[in-house]
């Protein structure tokens, strides 16, 4: 059971890092500004997921505190940039 759990957690971590690479490519080669902003927002969310998975692998809850700060402040930047682009 423990070996299956460890394998699943490591596989999920690798998958999430690959999805982060896809989002970085999306920010680099987006069609328009809003598309790139969606990619940047998704990078923040997936970073949160990677932090939670590292906390699960090391069974150490200190990474969840970092994720808490990222979740509390991360979406404000996206909202501010979206408002800025809408008002241009």
């Amino acid at each position, binding site marked *: *059971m*423990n070996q*299956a*759990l460890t394998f*699943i*957690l490591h*596989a*999920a971590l690798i*998958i*999430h890092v690959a*999805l982060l690479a*896809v*989002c970085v490519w*999306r920010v680099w080669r987006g069609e*328009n*500004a*809003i*598309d790139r*902003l*969606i*990619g940047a*927002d*998704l990078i923040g*969310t*997936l970073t*949160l*997921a990677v932090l*939670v*998975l590292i*906390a*699960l692998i090391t*069974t*150490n*809850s200190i990474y*969840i505190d970092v*994720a*808490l700060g990222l*979740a*509390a402040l*991360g*979406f404000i930047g*996206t*909202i501010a940039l*979206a*408002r800025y*682009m*809408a*008002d*241009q």
Partner: protein
Amino acid sequence: MGTIFQIVALLAVVLGTAFSMIGVLGLIRLPDVYTRLHAAGKVSVFGVALLLVAAPMLTPLGFGKALILIALLLIGGPAASHALASAAYRIGLPMKHAIRDDLGKAAGPAANSKP
């Protein structure tokens, strides 16, 4: 008791990873900005929230902190998605395969200059 928690945590991690993969697949495959936004919203609401359901079962973390984090995600993710969709509509990005535009008359060029 511990084994049940481990099985539930394993199922939550697998489901959350599947939701994240589907969301990013939609981000690169769907045709226009609004449908891509629909797919990207799934990652924060279902993907990370299901990983956080697994977190207090495997780590020495209280359920309260995980619930606070899930609540922050459920407040922040849809707010960011709505702001992005509103900005895309005001800039005037086109919709592909649109059947109708519900805001077409209400927020025309005269009405959507400033909120």
